[in-house]
């Protein structure tokens, strides 16, 4: 069923009592052309573009929990594209250009809100690094501009620009086209659209093994619901990529660490933009419900626990209170952790693997949500054709051997 004014009015008339399920929940078939491991935003988007743009509709997305229940439902929903290198501007710019029309594309309101993203500089080094990013972005046609402390406060009136504080605001990089979207809606929208095109989404079905034939190529996955055959497997498992790839005997250039976030009690609108500071490990925006959505730093150690130390969140809140003194008595409602897979150069891996038929999309680390549409779009091309397109090509697994790394440690916005 398409969402439209007429369908909304009809359902309102009936007291919203018979909306149909938005996607099917089938039992898995014995075999598919492609199996995607992981039904987060990136995996569901991959399945959607496989069906829509490449005509590959015999696709299953296998998920150990519920769809969108991992990092898709745990991130702080920031969308921006102010990365340094051309390769990054390629992939994040591609994704950023897809966001404004994504709700129309999926016929599902993802609540994209381009309210602007401000990256605050606290030191001479920050200032130099951010200005370098701004100039690089503008050469690549990606909007980004420098604000003085006074200009920054004009955009965000609750910002404390007193030069005497521990981490004074020396200026900010501001991307006006950046913003947020509703993370759950992105997963649900892609799931609904993919399901309508014939993609099977199988939830509560952990993958327990990757089976290979005599030639060494993949031939399917072992799961809690039995063997599912497929000549092509795309692993899109974020923090759990290393354990899944280990099933095929591969090690990855990844470390999985907890990244924490918090939300406050709902407030009247006070925060008009998304703010981030990688020097003090904090980022913050205000949701449409009024909650302040706050991203903290990552814990130091490898973990799959989806929780982290309270000292990490405390350090972030101390910094937030200094930068935004009016928030010092706001109470926090919840905090949680997501497991992010971090690469040595802080850029993702989208590529083939040494095993024929096995593809991997991982390493988005602390900032994968923004890339969801672009990542799914180029990964679908890779899985369908067997070769990466020009946008995905620099993000190969091979780059760790050739040395063509794409170092985005500064742009990652979370120091780690």
């Amino acid at each position, binding site marked *: 069923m398409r969402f439209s004014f007429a369908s909304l009015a009809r359902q309102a008339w009936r007291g919203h009592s018979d909306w149909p399920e938005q996607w099917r929940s089938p039992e898995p078939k014995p075999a598919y052309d492609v199996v995607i491991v992981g039904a987060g935003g990136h995996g569901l988007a991959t399945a959607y573009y496989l069906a829509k743009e490449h005509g590959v509709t015999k696709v299953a997305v296998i998920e150990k929990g519920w769809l969108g229940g991992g990092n898709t439902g745990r991130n702080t929903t920031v969308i921006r594209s102010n990365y340094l290198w051309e390769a990054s501007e390629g992939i994040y710019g591609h994704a950023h250009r897809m966001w404004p029309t994504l709700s129309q594309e999926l016929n599902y309101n993802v609540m994209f809100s381009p309210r602007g993203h401000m990256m605050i500089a606290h030191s001479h080094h920050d200032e130099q690094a951010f200005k370098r990013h701004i100039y690089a972005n503008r050469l690549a046609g990606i909007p980004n501009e420098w604000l003085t402390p006074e200009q920054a406060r004009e955009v965000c009136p609750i910002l404390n620009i007193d030069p005497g504080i521990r981490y004074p605001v020396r200026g900010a990089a501001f991307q006006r086209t950046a913003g947020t979207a509703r993370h759950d809606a992105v997963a649900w929208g892609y799931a609904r659209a993919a399901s309508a095109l014939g993609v099977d989404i199988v939830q509560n079905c952990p993958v327990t093994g990757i089976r290979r034939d005599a030639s060494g190529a993949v031939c399917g996955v072992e799961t809690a619901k039995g063997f599912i055959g497929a000549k092509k497997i795309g692993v899109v498992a974020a923090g759990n990529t*290393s*354990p899944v790839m280990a099933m095929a005997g591969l090690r990855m250039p*990844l470390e999985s660490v907890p990244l924490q976030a918090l939300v406050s009690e709902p407030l009247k609108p006070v925060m008009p933009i998304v703010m981030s500071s990688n020097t003090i490990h904090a980022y913050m925006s205000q949701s449409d419900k009024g909650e302040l959505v706050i991203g903290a730093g990552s814990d130091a*150690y*490898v*973990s*799959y626990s989806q*929780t982290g*130390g309270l*000292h990490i969140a405390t350090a972030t809140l101390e910094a937030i209170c200094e930068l935004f003194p009016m928030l010092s008595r706001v109470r926090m409602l919840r905090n949680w952790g997501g497991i992010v897979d971090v690469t040595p150069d802080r850029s993702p891996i989208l590529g083939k693997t040494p095993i024929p038929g096995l593809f991997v999309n991982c390493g988005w680390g602390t900032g994968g949500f923004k890339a969801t549409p672009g990542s799914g779009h180029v990964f679908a091309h890779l899985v369908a054709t067997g070769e990466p397109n020009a946008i995905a090509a620099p993000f190969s697994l091979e780059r760790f051997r050739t040395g063509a790394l794409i170092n985005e440690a500064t742009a990652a916005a979370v120091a780690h």
Partner: protein
Amino acid sequence: MLLIRCPYCEMERPESEFKYAGEAHLTREPLTATDEEWTDFLFFRHNTRGVYAERWRHAVGCGRFFNCLRDTVSDKIVVTYRAGEPRPALP
């Protein structure tokens, strides 16, 4: 916050005294190593879901590196031991 026993100081101290230093028991490749071997040594990690051998440094204590077995699902530390000692068998 983890409570970590430094095997040199022989004391349990809070995590904030320590620095994490990644996977333990990696052996530096000789200069004759191939590109593949170097890549593996520099970048590829087991990143184990389960008991993981990792290095920590008692940065604001004795300053020394040591190794630790920790379950990465529960974050519970199994045992810490001095650098150079072999990985202990699990109890």
